[in-house]
């Protein structure tokens, strides 16, 4: 192990970190939207990802649908799921304050984890496709095809959400409610409707991130919480409530993890990520990008 990687290795690390980070980033966007709009820390986000991953696993296993096509099934299903979750649960509970919604999210997480454990067993699963192992070379750098696909999909999803927030009336309403709920209500925005839409989008983003995960990593039901934590760190890096910031925060986190596992040791990568997280919280609570970031 060398402390100073050669240039090619350095680029390889950066690229791997970016691929890893986009997945955190997509999960973080959903989390960030939900937090921005209704101050709910939805810690079941990672578990929703794993639920999507298992759904893809079944789609591949029983109907042999390619994971990339299954995104088209996962997104609408998760949108509806998110809508139902908000209307059925979070709308009621959100009046009682943040600790109750946190508790509700936690209860959902435990419930879904154990349901998945019951249905799919604790064995580690993975999704195999024809392109799972293929890769190509640019110079000295190896790029895995499935990771590249995942990154592109993540990028498209982010762009779509960004455009939705920027260009549509509903998107404007979401941004308005995130900025000031009461003023939004005075201007005739129905905060419950907006929150439900935001929640649905957030869950759908978890679905996309889940499809991405299952293409690259083996997974088990307990994986979800780890992803929720990583998504939280990504948000802190990027600054709460911004779409681009969340994705960038995820990528920074991914690169940081890859770099520290190469130069120090893989065992310490998590601790370094958390330490960086706390330092960012203390010294730049508005996120690394600060006010330069587009506040969405």
């Amino acid at each position, binding site marked *: 192990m060398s402390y100073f990687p050669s240039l090619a290795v350095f680029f390889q690390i950066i690229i791997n970190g970016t691929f890893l980070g986009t997945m955190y980033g997509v999960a973080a966007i959903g989390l960030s939207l939900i937090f921005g709009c209704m101050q709910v820390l939805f810690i079941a986000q990672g578990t929703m990802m794993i639920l999507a991953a298992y759904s893809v696993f079944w789609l591949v296993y029983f109907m042999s649908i390619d994971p990339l096509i299954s995104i088209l099934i996962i997104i609408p299903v998760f949108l509806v799921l998110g809508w139902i979750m908000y209307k059925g649960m979070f709308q009621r509970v959100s009046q009682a304050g943040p600790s109750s919604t946190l508790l*509700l999210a936690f209860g959902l997480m*435990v*419930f879904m984890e154990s349901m998945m454990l019951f249905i799919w067993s604790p064995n580690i699963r993975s999704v195999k496709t024809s392109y799972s192992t293929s890769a190509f070379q640019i110079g000295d750098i190896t790029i895995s095809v499935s990771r590249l696909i995942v990154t592109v999909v993540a990028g498209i999803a982010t762009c779509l959400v960004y455009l939705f927030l920027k260009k549509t009336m509903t998107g404007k309403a979401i941004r308005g409610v995130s900025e000031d709920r009461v003023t939004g209500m005075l201007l005739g925005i129905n905060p419950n409707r907006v929150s439900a839409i935001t929640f649905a989008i957030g869950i759908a983003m978890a679905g996309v991130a889940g499809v991405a995960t299952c293409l690259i990593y083996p997974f088990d039901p307990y994986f979800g919480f780890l992803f929720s*934590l990583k998504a939280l760190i990504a948000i802190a890096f990027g600054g709460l409530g911004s779409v681009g910031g969340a994705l960038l925060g995820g990528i920074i986190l991914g690169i940081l993890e890859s770099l520290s596992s190469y130069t120090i040791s893989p065992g310490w990568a998590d601790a370094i990520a958390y330490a960086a997280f706390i330092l960012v919280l*203390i010294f730049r609570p508005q996120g690394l990008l600060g006010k330069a970031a587009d506040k969405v």
Partner: protein
Amino acid sequence: MLRLNQMKVHTKYIAGLIVVIFFVLCPLFLNSERSYFIYFLYTTFIYITIAQGWNLIAGYTGQVSLGQHAFFGLGAYITAITWRAGLTGYFDPLAFLLSGTGALLLAAIVGVVLLSKLRDDYFSLGTLGIGEILRVAALNGGSFTEGAAGISLNSTAYKSMNHYYYTALFIMLFTLVVIVLLIRSRVGLALIAIREDETAASANGIPVLRYKILAFSIGAFVTGLCGSLNAYYIFHVHPPGVLSLNWVVIPVLMCILGGAGTFMGPILGAFVLSIAFELTSIWMPEIHPIFSGAFIVLVTLFMPSGIMYYITNHKSMIMRRLRLTVFKWMNQKA
């Protein structure tokens, strides 16, 4: 009127005393080595202690810490390491004291850094990070913490379950007394003032940061004591065991379920949740976590502020409904 109030307070004390005497006498009637009930009470006492520690910082002071498992784990590790090094022995009061103090110091240091800078959710996330850093540090601690395998202690030292039971009971009572005294004093009022409005509290001359750190440290101290006791009970200290997020999540759930910021809330919540978990794990061992999750979801849906608030707010309504149903039922009969 005054007399009535005094009587109410007295009945509360007497009821509490009766319950405590019942707990003290329990091992005399039951075979503590075999009884499931004794084990149940032991774990519930530990949860009540941690939950009350969290209640002090989160329920009363309004700073939601998610790093209590760090203090629990630190307490367990201090006990294990000092025992292995021969500095302390089995059930050594010194080990308890060291574990508690270690956790207290960690809380004070973390508190100075995090509480001065971070508020609300940011503080929660920061404390969560502290716990995770400690976990990774324990995993990579080399021969000092023995990594993922953890430190195995000399389990032949085990004497009897009664030791654990009474120690847990003592720690819990100690915590409850400390919390009651704190909450009834000026300090308690200051803590609640900070929760309600930090700026107003500070404008009224309350040293906000100092009080926050005080509440955080006291909560950490009792949590460290529990960690120490747990190390003696399990005889094996390893990161997935003592630094598990369960040690923060379950007490927090109990606290919120019972009603955070009330004295009886965490106690009630701990008993309700423990009983729910135990019953489901006995009757439906296959699916009990599903039930636990669903239980939490249902409680937050229908009693989002906790059982205590529900009871105090709905006392008259509950009674009225009860009367109404009885009345209807009687009418139908007639």
